[in-house]
């Protein structure tokens, strides 16, 4: 399923978390009998897609939909329950840490909170040189130093400040340093998990520009995780929409924003507040978001969908390709009633 141009391919990936705690937490009385019950959070369920070289693939969804878990599973921070992950054609899930090493250098991650993701007791210099030295033990100290100032320059932080600590920088500058840390090992693929969500509008624009610039100059491929649809529209080439651990729509950014298909995508797009609109004009949804502990049967979205029918409550829809190239998981669309 992987062609030469695909950088990452994921196949039927599933990630669950056991949150049942110790033995005593798992025991409960039901109908007069002692029962042991496990509780699992079904964060990611059966997701497949590929990311092509040079594209910016975004995953959008609301909090708790499993988008961050998906990103972390792909990059190898969590082992998946089942499914396959390929990087440039070789399977990387289940690899030993030693075998994984070269892949770790080419896949890097940027996190949301620039206050929590930098070690407060390390200077910028120390933070930035650590990954380089780790991946290339024989590199000379002067070369590392050169590299640090080169990358700092690229992300717009004055190399003079390399001896400073994270608390001496503003949020935007810290995010630049996080980006610099990811760029230090010259990766090909970067997973950015909500990289601008914690930043103010004027700083957000600076960081987005920096990320786009790095993409052009270094030929990077991004996987971008965010809940902010206007950011997604601006920087993505393709977008996957997630709801409760499932991928409900997968489309080119243009198709997704111009002709959304899935009822959830439609509701999500109309809910974004728009400049110049004088009233919130969202498509209302029914009810509440269910928890990923008790996933609803059938389509996970049926409880909030205004178009749901009997089949939606029983059968899980699969992602089907439409003529436009958009993939959508919805019985209503498949049956032609939506």
């Amino acid at each position, binding site marked *: 399923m992987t062609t030469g141009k695909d950088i990452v391919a994921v196949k039927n990936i599933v990630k669950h978390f056991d949150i049942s705690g110790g033995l005593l937490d798992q025991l409960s009385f039901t109908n007069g009998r002692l029962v042991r019950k496990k509780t699992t959070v079904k964060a990611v369920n059966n997701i497949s897609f590929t990311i092509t070289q040079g594209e910016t693939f975004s995953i959008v969804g609301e909090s708790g939909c499993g988008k961050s878990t998906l990103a972390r599973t792909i990059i190898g921070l969590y082992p998946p329950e089942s499914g396959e992950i390929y990087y440039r054609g070789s399977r990387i899930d289940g690899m030993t840490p030693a075998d994984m090493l070269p892949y770790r250098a080419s896949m890097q991650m940027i996190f949301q909170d620039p206050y929590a993701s930098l070690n407060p007791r390390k200077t910028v210099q120390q933070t930035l040189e650590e990954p380089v030295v780790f991946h290339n033990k024989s590199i000379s100290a002067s070369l590392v130093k050169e590299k640090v100032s080169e990358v700092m320059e690229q992300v717009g932080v004055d190399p003079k400040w390399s001896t400073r600590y994270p608390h001496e920088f503003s949020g935007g500058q810290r995010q630049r340093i996080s980006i610099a840390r990811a760029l230090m090992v010259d990766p090909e693929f970067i997973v950015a998990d909500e990289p601008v969500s914690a930043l103010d509008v004027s700083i957000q*624009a600076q960081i987005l520009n920096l990320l786009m*610039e790095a993409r052009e100059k270094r030929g990077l491929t991004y996987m971008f995780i965010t809940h902010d649809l206007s950011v997604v529209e601006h920087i993505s080439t393709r977008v996957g929409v997630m709801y409760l651990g499932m991928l409900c729509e997968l489309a080119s950014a243009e198709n997704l924003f111009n002709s959304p298909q899935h009822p959830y995508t439609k509701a999500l797009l*109309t809910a974004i*507040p728009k400049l*110049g609109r004088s009233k919130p004009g969202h498509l209302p949804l029914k009810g509440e*978001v269910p928890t990923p502990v008790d996933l609803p049967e059938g389509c996970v979205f049926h409880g909030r969908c205004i178009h749901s029918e009997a089949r939606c409550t029983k059968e899980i829809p699969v992602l089907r390709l439409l003529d436009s190239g958009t993939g959508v998981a919805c019985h209503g669309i498949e049956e032609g009633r939506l």
Partner: protein
Amino acid sequence: MSHLLEVKNLSVTFALRFGELAAINDVSFTLQRGERFGLVGESGAGKSVTGFAIINLISKPGYIAGGRVLFENKELNSLSTEEMRRIRGNRISMIFQDPMMTLNPVLTIGTQMIETILAHKKVTKKQAEEIAIEKLERVHIPSPRKRFKQYPHEFSGGMRQRIVIAIALLTDPAIIIADEPTTALDVTIQAEIMTLLLELCESKNMGLILITHDLGVVSEVTERIAVMYAGRIVEVGSTRLVIDNPEHPYTKGLINALPGSQRPGTMLNQIPGVMPTLTGMPPGCAFHPRCSVRVQECKRNVPQLMPIGNKNIMAACHLLTGKRTNSEQ
């Protein structure tokens, strides 16, 4: 014409060991009955401090260093604690960002609602319960009688914020101050809460001061907005005019920096630098170090809010007022 609320040259200062820091400076605006007014700006601009100062909730080491707040022609900052209590939470209610922090986790929402009513109204407990249930219905909580007896953790984030709004409505206030009411919520829930707030303001002719960093939200909900930067209002006027045709360079920069304002894939227009902190406030106009059109004057004097043309917009910018006087000459 008398205004429902008039904020005049309001300043709040924090007295710290190393000196006095002005959090907001010379803030003035008015609110009419039933009007929806937005206070926008980035973090640290002084939006929340302004909200707190209106209901006299600035705690030490902060104090109101100058200016007045007039509500129904009463001067709020000269009232006694007792008199202020009769207005705060009664005639002027406030909604905060995080509904989990605002609600008491160990009391049922019913208890918390009755408590609020009994503090402000002479009614029996039974009557208070009826009022509370009616308000829960008003904010579209399903089966309010059953929900009334539940604890905050039994509700989702969006539902909790509805309950907080219901509590704010209990005393039928004339003004609701909502400080980032949907920042902690997902967009689909945010849209529901904003629609609800809008509907309540219209049906009850209630004034709303919406404090937010989200230009999209204010643009949809409010009729007039004030843009704040480094503790001062830099531009104020009708929402349509300010959003469609901003005058102040900061407002322009902010709107142009939004990802939705440009063709996808192109570089965004960024404002260089960051907002100054209270300790490092530059002389003159606080925006001048980041401003692309600054002139000498900007480094020397703080610009005052002035009407721009005959457009019903006021902006604080030397360049704009300079242009105005030039064209008048």
